[in-house]
C-alpha cells in the first residue's frame, strides 16, 4: 500500500493511502478547494480565506487519532461489551476515515451561508441541510471510487455504508458508536475547525489542548447505561477548554455582527443568481435542486464560490452583490443581550413594530451556524474507571461550564442609508419606556 503525505498548517503532515488519494482526486472532492470555509468572513477578518478542502483532510486526521486513542485503551472493554473483534476495529477505522473525509462534500458555495437557499425537504418540512447533499453525493458519485478499489477487498465497505454512517442510519448498527467522532459535542469536526479558523483568522479564541484531549478520550456509560464517548477525569480541563473555545469563537467570529450581515447579503445574491442564472434549469425558484437524484446532485455541484464570484463580477449578482462590492452592508441598530429575558424579547417586538419596513432582517443566534448552546461532555471519574464506567456530565462538575448559557441574542439590521432614522425611532421606544 502506497502512502502519501500532505502538509497542513494545523496538523503538520496528514498521511493518506492510495485509495484515499483517489477519493481526494475525485472532481467532487476537488470542488471543496473552491468552497471557502467561512464564507465572507474575510470582509471582517482578511485572513479567513481557507477552504473546506483542507478542513476535510484535517477532520479525517483528527477523527483517526481519536479512534485510535479510544481503541488502544479500551479494546478489551469494546470486545467484551460490544462484541468487537480486531477485524471489526480495522473496518470501523476505515469507515470513520472515509466518512470524516467526505462529511462536507455536499457543502453549498460559501459553506453554511449557502444553506439558506436549499429547497424544502418534504419529509421534515424544513430545508435540506448540507449533510443531506453530502450523503447524496457519496451515494451517487463516490460509489465506484469507494467500492471498487483493490484495498476495499479487505473491508467490503459500500458507499451507502459511508453515507448511512453520516446520516445516522440504523443499518450501520454497532458502528453508530463512532458517529459521535464526527457529529457531537466532542467531534473531530469542531476539533479541527476551531483551531484552523483561529489560525487563519489570526485570533487565539479557538485554541484548546487537543493533545491532552486525545490521550484522555474514552468509552464509558451514560447515566442510563448507554455506551458513550467521553473523557477521562484527567482530561476534564481540556474538555472545558474546548467548550470555552467554542463560546469565544461564536461570540467573536461566527456571530460577529458585520460577518452576519454578509451571510444575509450572500443568501440574497444566491437567490438572485438561482432565479436569474442563464442556466436556470438547475434552479427551482431561487433554490438549489433537491438532493434526490444523481442528475440533481451533478447540477448542484456545478455551483461553487468561483462561479458565484464570476457572476457577481460580471454584474449578474443583483442589488445585494453591489452592496457587497462597495462594502455598504446593512447595519445592526439594536441587539438584545446574549441571553434575552422574556421582557427583552417583548421590547424587541416593540422596536421592530416601530421600525416597520426599515427592518431588513432580524438575525437570531440560534439560527446561525456553529450556534452556541450549553455543551456537555461525559467525564469518566477515576473511581469508576475500573468498575462501573459510569460517567458524569461535565456541566454537573465544572463551575465554568455550569456558568455558560445558551446564546440567543437577536439583532435588528437596517440599510446603511436608513441607519440614522432607525436609531431615532429606537430612541423613541426606549424613551417611552423611561430610558431603558
Amino acid at each position: 500500500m502506497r502512502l502519501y503525505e500532505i502538509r497542513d498548517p494545523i496538523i503538520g503532515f496528514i498521511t493518506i493511502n492510495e485509495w484515499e488519494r483517489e477519493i481526494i482526486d475525485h472532481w467532487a472532492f476537488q470542488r471543496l478547494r473552491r468552497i471557502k470555509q467561512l464564507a465572507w468572513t474575510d470582509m471582517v477578518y482578511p485572513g479567513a480565506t481557507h477552504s473546506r478542502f483542507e478542513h476535510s483532510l484535517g477532520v479525517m486526521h483528527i477523527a483517526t487519532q481519536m479512534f485510535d486513542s479510544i481503541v488502544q485503551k479500551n479494546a478489551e472493554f469494546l470486545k467484551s461489551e460490544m462484541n468487537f473483534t480486531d477485524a471489526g476495529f480495522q473496518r470501523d477505522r476505515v469507515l470513520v476515515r472515509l466518512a470524516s473525509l467526505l462529511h462536507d462534500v455536499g457543502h453549498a458555495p460559501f459553506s453554511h451561508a449557502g444553506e439558506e437557499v436549499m429547497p424544502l425537504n418534504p419529509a421534515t418540512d424544513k430545508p435540506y441541510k448540507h449533510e443531506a447533499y453530502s450523503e447524496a453525493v457519496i451515494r451517487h458519485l463516490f460509489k465506484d471510487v469507494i467500492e471498487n478499489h483493490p484495498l476495499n477487498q479487505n473491508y467490503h465497505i459500500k458507499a451507502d455504508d459511508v453515507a448511512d454512517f453520516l446520516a445516522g442510519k440504523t443499518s450501520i448498527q454497532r458502528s453508530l458508536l463512532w458517529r459521535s467522532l464526527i457529529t457531537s459535542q466532542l467531534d473531530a469536526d469542531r476539533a479541527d475547525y476551531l483551531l484552523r479558523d483561529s489560525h487563519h483568522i489570526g485570533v487565539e479564541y479557538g485554541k484548546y489542548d487537543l493533545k491532552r484531549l486525545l490521550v484522555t478520550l474514552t468509552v464509558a456509560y451514560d447515566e442510563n447505561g448507554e455506551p458513550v464517548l467521553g473523557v477521562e477525569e484527567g482530561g476534564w480541563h481540556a474538555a472545558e477548554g474546548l467548550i470555552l473555545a467554542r463560546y469565544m469563537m461564536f461570540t467573536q467570529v461566527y456571530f460577529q455582527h458585520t460577518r452576519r450581515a454578509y451571510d444575509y447579503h450572500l443568501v440574497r445574491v444566491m437567490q438572485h443568481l438561482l432565479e436569474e442564472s442563464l442556466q436556470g434549469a438547475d434552479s427551482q425558484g431561487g433554490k438549489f435542486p433537491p438532493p434526490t437524484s444523481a442528475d440533481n446532485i451533478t447540477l448542484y455541484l456545478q455551483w461553487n464560490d468561483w462561479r458565484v464570484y464570476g457572476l457577481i463580477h460580471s454584474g449578474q449578482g443583483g442589488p445585494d452583490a453591489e452592496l457587497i462590492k462597495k462594502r455598504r452592508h446593512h447595519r445592526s441598530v439594536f441587539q438584545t443581550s446574549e441571553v434575552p429575558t422574556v421582557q427583552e424579547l417583548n421590547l424587541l417586538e416593540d422596536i421592530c413594530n416601530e421600525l416597520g419596513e426599515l427592518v431588513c432582517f432580524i438575525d437570531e443566534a440560534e439560527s446561525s451556524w456553529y450556534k452556541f448552546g450549553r455543551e456537555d461532555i461525559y467525564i469518566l471519574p477515576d473511581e469508576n474507571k475500573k468498575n462501573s464506567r459510569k460517567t458524569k456530565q461535565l456541566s454537573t462538575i465544572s463551575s465554568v461550564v455550569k456558568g455558560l448559557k445558551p446564546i440567543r441574542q437577536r439583532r435588528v439590521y437596517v440599510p446603511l442609508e436608513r441607519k440614522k432614522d432607525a436609531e431615532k425611532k429606537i430612541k423613541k421606544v426606549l424613551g417611552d419606556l423611561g430610558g431603558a
Partner: protein
Amino acid sequence: MKLNIPWHQYALIVYLAEKMQEKKQRFGKTALQKLIYLLQTIFKVPVGYQFSLYIYGPFCSDLMDDLDYVSCIGGVAVTMDQGSTGYTISSSSNAELIKNKAQDFLDVYQSQINKLLDEFGSMRVRDLELRSTIIFVDRDALTSGREITRDDFIQEIKSIKPHFSYDEIKEAMEELESRGYIERRM
C-alpha cells in the same frame, strides 16, 4: 417584520415539566428527549425538532439548547439530584408567562400531549430509550424502503443496544405493534 421566536417549543417543555411533576414522575433530560420524539413521531404533533440517531437513541441537540434557554428565562428549573448522576426538570417562576405565549398551540394539541403522558409518562427512562429506538429504526426502514424480517429487526436493535436482552426487545416491539405504532413484521 415578524419575530421568529419558537414559543410553542418553550411552552411545551414547561408544560411537560408541570405534568410530569403532577404525576410525581422524575423528569430528566433523557425523558424530555424521548417524550418529545414520541410526540412528534407517533402523535404527529409538529413541534419542529429534528432528531438524529446515536448509539444512545434518538437525540436532538437543539432541544437541549432550548431546555437550557427555558431554564435561563425562568420557565423551568434544571437541578442536579443529590447523589445522582442525572438532572431533574421542574416548572419554575415564569412557567405561566411562557405557556401563555403559546396557549393556542397547547390547546390545539392538548389531547395528543395527554395521550403521550398517559401511555409513556410513567415509564422508566430505560424503557423510553428502547421504545424510541425501536420506533426510529421502524421509521428509518420504512422511509428508506428497507424490508427487514422480524428477526433481522430484533437483531438490528440488539446490535445498537447490546445491553437489552432479546426478550426485552421482543416485548417492547409487541407492545408497540399492538398499539399500531410500528409496522408488524413477520
